């Protein structure tokens, strides 16, 4: 009995790395499963079990479960990475400030511009870090204004990188230029992600319900030309659409699986179109 309490105490200690809201609802249950699955005679938490728990807790804290498309989740992660990169840029500039000043002396014409750029990075970085974090949070919630603001910020970022290039910052302060390019790349990737079709549906759920999915397979009424061949993207999109219709009760399980078979093996538009012909647009 005393063995059990040591084990239980060990599990409780590790479970503290899970979000409090999760523990309130699931803590007792997880603990019960942990104790049920613990090998007979085990008195201490094993390394593998402890690692599995810690990993789950950290994952839950960093990426809280929310019905977000993968593109948006990736964009949010990238924006957090953007904040980290910005911090790295700040440190880079702070550390290399002296060296850059010395190097700038060899290019008298550009000294002012480069130093202005360096000071701008030093002063602006805390603001930029805050902006990245704020945009990550708001985009994660699916706020459409956050998406627009992200695009606008990326435009400004592009402009500042181009400006830095024009001012020969690369020649005088290569480390600063590399940091700026890294930040820009992260910005580009996250903006591309939040404008993918999957992400658009997340930001605009109401509009998405009115518009048909953007795949040729779902446009049977418009296909009046030759019976075109279709690809994996069409098959996959139709399979997902059929799943959605099934979930909404428009198809029985038998109808769903039968149509899925047809959709996944179809090679022509006419074949795949017949699987969704009598179904409304999603």
């Amino acid at each position, binding site marked *: 009995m005393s063995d059990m309490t040591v084990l239980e105490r060990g599990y409780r200690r590790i479970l503290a790395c899970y979000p409090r809201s*999760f523990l309130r609802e*699931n803590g*007792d*249950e*997880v603990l*019960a*499963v*942990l*104790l*049920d*699955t613990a090998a007979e005679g085990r008195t201490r938490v094993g390394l*593998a*079990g402890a690692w*599995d*728990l*810690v*990993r*789950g*807790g950290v*994952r*839950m804290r960093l990426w809280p*479960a*929310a*019905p977000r498309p993968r593109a948006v989740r990736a964009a949010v992660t990238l924006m957090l990475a953007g904040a980290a990169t910005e911090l790295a840029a700040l440190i880079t500039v702070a550390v290399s400030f002296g060296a850059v000043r010395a190097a700038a002396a060899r290019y008298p014409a550009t000294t002012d511009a480069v130093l202005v750029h360096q000071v701008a990075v030093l002063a602006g970085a805390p603001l930029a870090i805050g902006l990245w974090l704020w945009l990550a949070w708001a985009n994660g919630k699916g706020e459409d204004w956050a998406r627009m603001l992200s695009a606008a910020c990326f435009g400004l970022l592009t402009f500042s990188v181009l400006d830095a290039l024009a001012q020969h910052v690369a020649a005088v302060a290569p480390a600063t230029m590399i940091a700026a390019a890294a930040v820009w790349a992260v910005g580009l990737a996250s903006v591309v992600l939040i404008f993918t079709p999957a992400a658009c549906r997340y930001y605009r759920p109401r509009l998405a319900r009115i518009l048909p999915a953007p795949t040729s397979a779902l446009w049977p009424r418009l296909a009046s030309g030759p019976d075109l061949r279709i690809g994996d993207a069409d098959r*996959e999109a139709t*399979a*997902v659409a*059929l*799943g*959605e219709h*099934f*979930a909404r*009760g428009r198809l029985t*399980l038998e109808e*769903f*699986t039968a149509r*899925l*078979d047809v959709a*996944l*093996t179809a090679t022509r538009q006419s074949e795949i179109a017949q699987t969704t012909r009598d179904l409304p647009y999603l």
Partner: protein
Amino acid sequence: MQEATFLILTALADGSQHGYGIITEVAQISDGRVRLRAGTLYTALDRLRADGLVAVDGEEIVEGRLRRYYRLTPDGTAVLAAEAARLQANAAAALARLRPGLAGGLA
């Protein structure tokens, strides 16, 4: 979809299960190859519940311990069926391409 997620949904496909039940079902389905740990299970369940694929199906207290039952939602059934069909299509394609080599040896 990760294999653990797929197996958890599969374990719930023919009826609701509690956490420990899911772990034993998954071990059985995978022939003992996949032994889910509690951390992995509950991180996955948390996400599946948020995505609306799995829902809580009641609770009971057994020997002083809380047992919560989980079941597939209609969405969960659809996603599992679509994923199973996708895996089957991939497997069929792989076997079809392997077959000449397997059947006829070197041509």
